[in-house]
């Protein structure tokens, strides 16, 4: 079997290696988890509200005091670490919304605007993106968070429930309500409404 057909090391493997002093294991973990974390952070603090800082802070806590996750738990141990990270991130985001990061955010927002630009070259894509962006902003914070966790972080309802401290049923309701709201907001992009609707739906 060629190399590429082999399995990647699990979170618990990497965590174990890092526990033994292996820095590369940490970077691998950070790389693996940071995109969903970033999506989660953005759903909580907004695009320019210090999401990166929050992710960094969460990963920093992982670096400084890695949690004790049951070893050999396979899937469970893997999602345990992810859950732990998201919980930490959540606390960080809720804290930073009040404190120091708010000041930094203000500074950043008053600084010369460069972060706003990006991808101006593709107007069409940008329109859609901006619309989705706007739609997300109009959701309630709860809806935004669970949708980010489900669709950007690929977390299951149960995992989301564990991370957010909500009931699994509530998570389902929030997602459903959020998606419906988005469908209304993005009505012009819905099947049938779209100019030259793309035949992407099954």
């Amino acid at each position: 079997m060629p190399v590429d057909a082999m399995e990647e090391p699990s979170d618990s493997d990497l965590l174990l290696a890092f526990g033994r002093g292996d820095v590369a294991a940490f970077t691998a973990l950070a790389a693996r988890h940071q995109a969903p974390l970033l999506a989660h952070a953005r759903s909580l603090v907004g695009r320019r509200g210090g999401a990166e800082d929050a992710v960094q802070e969460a990963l920093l806590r992982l670096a400084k005091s890695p949690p004790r996750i049951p070893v050999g738990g396979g899937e469970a141990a893997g999602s345990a670490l992810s859950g732990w990270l998201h919980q930490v991130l959540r606390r960080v985001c809720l804290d930073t919304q009040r404190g120091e990061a708010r000041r930094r955010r203000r500074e950043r927002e008053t600084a010369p605007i460069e972060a706003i630009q990006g991808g101006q070259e593709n107007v069409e894509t940008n329109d859609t993106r901006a619309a989705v962006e706007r739609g997300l902003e109009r959701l309630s914070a709860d809806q935004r968070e669970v949708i980010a966790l489900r669709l950007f972080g690929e977390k299951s309802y149960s995992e989301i429930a564990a991370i957010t401290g909500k009931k699994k049923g509530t998570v389902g309701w929030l997602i459903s309500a959020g998606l419906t709201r988005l469908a209304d907001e993005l009505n012009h992009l819905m099947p049938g409404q779209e100019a030259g609707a793309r035949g992407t739906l099954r």
Partner: protein
Amino acid sequence: MKPNEEVTAQERADLVAWMLGEAAVDVRARVDAALLERPALKAERLRLERVVELLREHARSASGAEQVDGVGMNALIDAARASAAKRRGWRRIVRPLALAAAALFLAGLGLFSTGRLDPWLGETAPQSEMAASLDAPADAAKSALTAEQIKQLWALGYGGYGVVPGASEPSNSSSVDRGAPTHKGDGGTLDSPELAARLAPLGYVEDGAAVPMSKGLALARIQDMLAPFNGESSFDYFLRAFGSRPFESARRKPIATFAASVDTASYSHARAYLERGELPPADLVRTEAFINAFRGSYGDSGPQNGTFALHLELAPSPFGDVQRAPWLLRATAVARDVPRGERTPLALTFAVDVSGSMAPLNRLELVKSALELLVEELDSFDRVALVAYSSVARIILPMTHASDRGPLLEAIRGLASGGGTNLEGGLALAYQHAADHFDPAAGNRVVLLSDGVGNIGAVTREALLAGVGAQRAKGIYLNTIGVGMGDHNDALLDDLARTGDGIATYVDDEREARRAFVENFVGSFETVARDVKLQVEFDPARVGRWRLLGYESRALADRSFRDDSVDAGEVNAGHSVVALFELHDVSLQGPGALTTFRVRHKPPFGAPGADAPSEQAAVIRGSDALSAVASASPAFRLSAAVAQAAEMLRASPHREGAHTEAVVRELRAVAPLLRRGDLGEDPAAEPLALAERLERVGLYLDARARRGDDRRQHDLRFAHWELAVELEARGEPDPNRIRELRARIAELEAQQIGAPR
């Protein structure tokens, strides 16, 4: 139309759960049924699926197109290091795939792509620039990517990623038909955005992401697309990839000629990877470096008199293609040792990097303890000076007799870090001081200790090397010691040491420092032979095919053996040079020498008759061959096992399908048989440690060996290299050999190149 009017919130929640794979069996059945009956629900499903699709697209584009300013990976890594340092002691397991996967992941996300030197990923290239320059003409790459860049690129493990965007014609310009090389090295430095821009046209990125491909193919690709640039010597050009030596027919080519190599840096680097539980990049592994790294464990006996003792041993090979009943020939040249009391006095000037970067990971502390260890080893007739440099260079301790331990140790312990890295200034001051206190009766040497050379002051690398070369001509040698660099190979430190006729050593911890400075001390400074060349000649009547393991970069034309103007390897006191040959179709019958082994060298500078070369020879007969591996010497078995490990690690096509387990077993079997050396060190320690490290990566190593690299690429590269060596050597080229090599190259190039296997 408002299709959701009829749909209740509960129905919608069930529908969403069903869409997202979260629905329980009963909910599933309910939704399935409802979808068939209710057009409104069906319409709602289409809407919600579209929303999910839009959100997923949004997530993808947010992470891909948008340049996120990263989440401060460097700070994280520092924190992780600090945290990990507490538990240092057994750094272990990470599987290599984690890194590969992570690297790909990062490259794809573009999250960390700020082009800085990341201690783990190596130089990361900005995706945007890579993508932006995809359309740049390939000529730009040809002209501007220097050999140095490519070397660094490979050292950084870039070779493993890339993609072939379409069949491209192999370069059929015979780049080797050029005149003699003008100079070695070039003035290039690694500039990552530029490098990235240059790389892009080579097809290393696709849709803004690096794509994995066989390393052999990636390398071949670069070589195909990059002609040697102006002034590049063939040595540098082919350093990009020498390939592997193929089996040669002894009837057509009965002689192997190569320069001695005692460099073990490749092994040190690879070991650093293995200690972390990763496989080193295949190109980093040089078989000869692996074999020679274990010279301390072989216990080969030195000469009674003369400079070298030559040994030949022939036994069935424990590895290789069993069908062909391979034999293994071990040719060893052991240099005389110099007893401590008789050695040349030393005048050492240490140039110590005390820049800010020496503070992390206790690098400076490691330097201090290394220096202290060294000072302990010195005798009263040796002298030491200490120069420290950061942004500026200054003399901490002028040339002092080593017997003055007090001031010496005080100076060492007082070193403190901070500031920039003015390598040029530090070296210049050290050289000047060494010259001021030059002792013609001593070994005058500057020893550079650094954590790698980030910035090199105002001068170019070329000028720096020229300066080192000039000092070398005046009789001042240069050793370099890389400190706390992990697996990071510093091409400049290597080149500086090579130019200064010294050794580049890398130490990561106290144990390695002890190994380098105490156990190996006299040898690391006392050259006993210069321009050492080796030649092995087979009797074509009794040996069918032969293959030299490793020594690709040391290849010499056969006629260069007695050309004493040819620069070859230096060998230090007590060091041995070991070469292994795999032989096929051997007949032990018949009289006379089956194999003749010759070594030619010049005495060290300053010795009487310094320019008078001498030659020694030894032969082995068929009747000397051993019948089984078990009866071979422990040194034979150990070197065979180590070579096997190296061949597997470099994915040698000759070792396709080899098993780690066999190597590990052999290492463990032979370890207890090794003879304890004169210095009392444990000869079994390193072999056993290697066995353990290999075992840990066994799964991955087996996979690499199973894959093997494309043999054609290895053969092609080595054929190109050998042709260049043959053409560029002084004297009349052997027309038969050249015809043969050209034919081989033509045949190999005719086969499709660049097609993934």
